[in-house]
């Protein structure tokens, strides 16, 4: 079966800045792929090219086996975009926004009414049916924004940092909605700065750096590429001494500023770590299994000052 989205060798330059440099990615049908990477690595540029908001300088994008260039504007009817900014009409009601976009995509009146009713119900928008969008909370607006992206039943849903601008409760709500879409077989390409979001929602994660994918795989596959099984975070009054001791134990030093962090070759209990360090300068220790955050740092070789969040 052909991939839902096949991207080969994309190049894009803005002035002197090479944003994409041979970017390639495959998204299988029904799969949720997350694009992760530091700010400016080209994530949004990839989405903009897929949504035909930008043209690549070189490379090819195929949607359901057909080149995007051949599909022309028809491709827009096959992709649903939920961008970072909530692009909705604040003076209209939620259903009116859905109807408006439904009409732009050429849905017939009967089809549109059925689809709007379906989305209003599945996104729980019923209680806010008589509230103008401008008066909805950020979380509800983002919910509606996602519903608008789905109004024409796109074959590929593109989410650009879908929960970046909402509070924790709204984020969890959105995640549940996206999980529902994933479980119903919707193909999704999403970008995120939140590793926990990618870990929870994505079947596969692509790590980007310098305008290209440097690693792609499922979360367990990416974790398997980390040369260790656990991470110990240590608060120490003498970093040099603690580091030296850790190196002798065969542990890899992962972070140098703030609290020390060591990559352990095998899973150790908290007691085992404390006993192994056995140092008066150590005031606190915690041990956790290797996470996507560790894989991210390991594979991107990113210094800890890079912009990422783990909440």
């Amino acid at each position, binding site marked *: 079966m052909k991939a839902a989205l096949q991207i080969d060798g994309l190049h894009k330059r*803005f002035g002197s800045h090479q944003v994409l440099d041979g970017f390639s990615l495959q998204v299988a049908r029904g799969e949720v792929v997350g694009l992760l990477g530091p700010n400016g690595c080209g994530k949004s540029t990839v989405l*903009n090219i897929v*949504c*035909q*908001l*930008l043209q690549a300088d070189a490379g090819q994008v195929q949607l359901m086996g057909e080149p995007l260039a051949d599909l022309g*504007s*028809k491709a*827009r*009817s096959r*992709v649903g*975009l939920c*961008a970072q*900014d*909530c*692009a*909705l*009409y*604040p*003076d*209209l009601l939620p259903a*009116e926004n859905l109807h*408006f*976009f439904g*009409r*732009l*995509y*050429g849905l017939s009146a009967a089809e549109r009414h059925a689809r709007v009713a379906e989305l209003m119900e599945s996104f729980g928008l019923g209680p806010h049916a008589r509230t*103008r969008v401008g008066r909805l909370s950020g979380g509800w607006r983002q919910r509606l924004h996602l519903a608008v992206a789905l109004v024409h039943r796109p074959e590929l849903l593109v989410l650009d940092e879908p929960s970046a601008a909402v509070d924790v409760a709204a984020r969890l709500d959105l995640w549940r909605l996206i999980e529902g879409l994933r479980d119903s077989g919707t193909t999704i390409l999403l970008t995120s700065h939140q590793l926990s979001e990618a870990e929870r929602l994505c079947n596969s994660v692509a790590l980007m750096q310098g305008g290209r994918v440097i690693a792609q795989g499922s979360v367990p596959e990416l974790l398997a590429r980390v040369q260790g099984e656990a991470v110990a975070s240590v608060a120490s009054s003498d970093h040099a001494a603690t580091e030296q001791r850790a190196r002798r134990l065969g542990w890899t030093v992962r972070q140098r500023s703030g609290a020390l962090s060591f990559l352990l070759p095998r899973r150790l209990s908290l007691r085992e770590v404390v006993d192994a360090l056995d140092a008066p300068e150590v005031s606190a220790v915690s041990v956790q299994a290797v996470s996507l955050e560790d894989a991210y740092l390991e594979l991107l070789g990113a210094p800890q000052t890079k912009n990422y969040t783990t909440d």
Partner: protein
Amino acid sequence: MIGRSLLLAQTLAVAQRLLLEQWRQRRGLIFWAVFPAAMMLLFGLVYAHNASMRAGLDAAAAGILMGAALFFSCLGGTVAIIAAERERRTLRRLLASPLHPSAYFLGVVLAQLLLAAVQVVMLYAIAWFIGARYHGSLWLGGLILLLSVFAYVGMGFFLGARFARRSEEVVVALSAIGVPLLVLGGTFFPLEIMPGAMQAVAQLNPMLHMNQAFKGVAAYALGVNELRFELAFLTLFCVLAMALGVRSYRQLLALEQRA
């Protein structure tokens, strides 16, 4: 290529959305109605007070409709629509949809045309009480209105795309570029009292031809034959305005793509 039925559906969707938004912004709607009504009343009082000027009341009503009401609602309204789409980032969202630029332009024209029709009825109702009359062919008047709305919307797209990135810039763009065009359009002074060079420049101003054509039919009951130059100019300008409007919209989208 986009199918005609989709183009029509998109045009109607855009027009309906704009009218609904206008309806919901009640305060704006009140000002939109009050401004030309107040102008008509003030002019009416001045003209009624001076017996020698009373004959010019019919032409004044036509001038207020073209130069005040439609200028601010169709031209200013279009600039405001473009600025709002940019500000709310909906323009980018529209770009990701299959909405055709022509459908967007025609949708704005249709919405402005319906608003203009309401303004015509409202303004002439007030004018009637003051003593002004409409003398010419309603069909010809309607045609001039249609051409004028097209022209205003085209100019609105051009100004909005180039000069109004935010809502606050709408008034500035309108004042800096629109009002001089209004002056050169013979709205405030008759063309005859302007210096020769100004008169020559004014001939290129579509607002002048809108004013002259509508005054001609409304106040002096002139026919197609007498107004053929103005009608030809306006028709040509409409084609240009539509091309300019769609082009400005495309350029705007290209700018949004780079944003």
